[in-house]
């Protein structure tokens, strides 16, 4: 009994590391004023959990800790994406946190670690109450993170807006859970899936409410409206984390809910996901055309990319391989969007006192003044557009499209190609501004920020290497999905 418990505790060691790490950083905040120290400790905690997640041998999903959480390759793979993006986010904003006025960086790092711990619980939850608690820990920390620049109006407004709409979605999700519990008499995902065959009205309405709540958390059409406002107002590093890590966690849970919990209702949700994916791709790409702020542009682009990932969820079959395509896309997209937000962060630090620090005109003539930054941004834009020099972005789209075609969804691939075509226009608009537009009159002073540039270089290298050798990730992703 105790042996088994000890073994299972070992399997959730990364989670314990994150939770204890959050408390350590919180205590450190009391005793030390050094922002860099807290940032480094946070990075070390995240690095340690990444290291543990990498070491775990792959094995199929099983329920551990008395039915509370799943442990297995799928959980560890998606948790790895979450921890990795949090790690890169911390390093990205290390310098910014150091020099900002009111000393709040301790809270910032604590909340970030708590959000990651909550996201980990959310991903691994094997029953509905755990799922809800994980979601709430993740969301509450994120609401506070969004509003963490208390002197900045748009940050606070973004926080309040995200709080209101996010809590509304959580309640809808929770009502869905209550109805599912009512229809099945159990809160464990596997047991609910067992009785799923009898489709009573209560079960179906519960499933629909759960589905709507998840769409909101990922930011898919028709529950996407909060994404641009929140990503635009929140501090840039937080937006980067939400677009990469939090989205990865939400997609991972969505995949598990649809495939494991509602696996026997595939015909019912297949059409819904089809429409959601198609509308997200079209709306995200077309509305992004008219955006001037880079953060809003990236927000609409993230809606579109969530649509591409949903295509992978759609291709649920042994031959299609949609699951591993979606996981590969998630990992590469995390690097791409972190890189793009990272360049915006580095650049907009120079205009922090202006109203629109992330306006596209801030990029004018960047190639002549800062050729390396411009080259990195070009690489990330090409990756987001899915163009060949940035192999990762290209391969990610290639895998998802192939999976969709193999499982017989040709129509949505045509829509996605149209979306990608439109997307290329607005991504390349940034490149054109950097290389061909004349530089603004006022001089642009970018600070020396070694940790942020290290993150940008790492993201670019990861996109390139994982694009040229996709099997490194793809094989692990395939193992993870097949063990679900």
């Amino acid at each position, binding site marked *: 009994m105790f042996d088994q418990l000890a073994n299972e505790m070992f399997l959730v060691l990364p989670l314990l590391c994150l939770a204890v790490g959050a408390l350590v950083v919180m205590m450190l905040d009391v005793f030390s004023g050094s922002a860099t120290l807290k940032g480094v400790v946070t990075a070390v905690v995240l690095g340690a959990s990444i290291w543990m997640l990498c070491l775990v041998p792959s094995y199929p999903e099983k329920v551990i800790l008395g039915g509370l959480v799943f442990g297995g390759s799928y959980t560890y793979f998606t948790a790895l994406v979450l921890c990795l993006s949090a790690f890169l986010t911390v390093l990205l904003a290390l310098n910014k946190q150091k020099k900002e006025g009111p000393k709040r960086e301790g809270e910032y790092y604590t909340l970030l670690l708590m959000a990651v711990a909550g996201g980990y619980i959310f991903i691994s939850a094997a029953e*509905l*109450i755990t799922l*809800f*608690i994980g979601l*709430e820990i993740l969301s*509450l920390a994120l*609401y*506070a993170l969004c*509003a963490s620049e*208390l*002197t*900045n*109006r*748009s940050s*606070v*407004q*973004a*926080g*309040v*807006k995200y*709080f*209101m709409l996010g*809590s*509304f979605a959580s*309640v809808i999700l*929770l*009502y869905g*859970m*209550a*109805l599912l*519990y*009512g229809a099945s*008499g*159990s*809160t464990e995902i596997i047991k609910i899936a067992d009785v799923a065959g009898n489709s009573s009205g209560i079960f179906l309405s519960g499933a629909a409410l759960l589905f709507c709540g998840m769409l909101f958390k990922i930011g898919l059409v028709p529950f996407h409206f909060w994404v*641009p*406002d929140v990503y*635009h*107002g929140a501090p840039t590093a937080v937006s980067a984390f939400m677009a990469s890590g939090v989205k990865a966690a939400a997609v991972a849970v969505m995949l598990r809910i649809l495939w494991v919990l509602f696996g026997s209702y595939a015909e019912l949700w297949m059409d819904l996901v089809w429409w959601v994916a198609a509308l997200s791709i079209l709306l995200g790409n077309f509305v992004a055309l008219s*955006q*001037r*702020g880079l*953060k*809003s542009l990236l927000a609409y682009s993230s809606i579109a990319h969530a649509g591409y990932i949903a295509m992978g969820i759609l291709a649920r079959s042994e031959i299609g391989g949609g699951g591993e395509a979606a996981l590969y896309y998630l990992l590469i997209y995390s690097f791409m969007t972190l890189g793009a937000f990272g360049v915006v962060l580095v650049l907009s630090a120079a205009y922090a006192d202006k109203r*629109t620090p992330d306006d596209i005109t801030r990029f004018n003539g960047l190639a002549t003044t800062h050729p390396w930054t411009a080259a990195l941004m070009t690489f990330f834009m090409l990756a987001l557009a899915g163009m060949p020099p940035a192999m990762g972005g290209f391969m990610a789209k290639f895998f998802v499209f192939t999976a969709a075609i193999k499982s017989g969804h040709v129509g949505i691939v045509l829509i996605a190609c149209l979306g990608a075509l439109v997307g290329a226009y607005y991504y390349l608009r940034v490149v054109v501004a950097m290389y061909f537009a004349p530089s603004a009159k006022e001089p642009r002073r970018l600070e020396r920020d070694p940790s942020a540039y290290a993150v940008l270089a790492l993201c670019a290298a990861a996109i390139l290497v994982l694009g040229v050798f996709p099997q490194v990730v793809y094989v692990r992703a395939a193992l993870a999905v097949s063990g679900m």
Partner: protein
Amino acid sequence: MVPLSAYLILSALMFVIGAVGFIFRRNTIVMLMCLELMLNAVNISFAAFSRFHGNIDGQVAAFFVIVAAAAEAALGLALIISLYRAVKSLDSYGPDELRP
């Protein structure tokens, strides 16, 4: 003996009242109250189903929901205070800087 359906109808009604209030009111504190109303509607459902199935899971869920609701209210009020300090308004669609 009150039937299960009575509890479910009560819960659904409370939920809808909360949702309608949430959607049509602009004052953030009223919106927060509507959220609490909806959470408690869900709690009624959980408790009623728990009694119906004769197992304890639903009641445990209701307790966890109460904890989450308390945390949510605390954070929500803190956010609303900082919103008021920043924009001198409790309106969720007040002087809006979010439009890019």
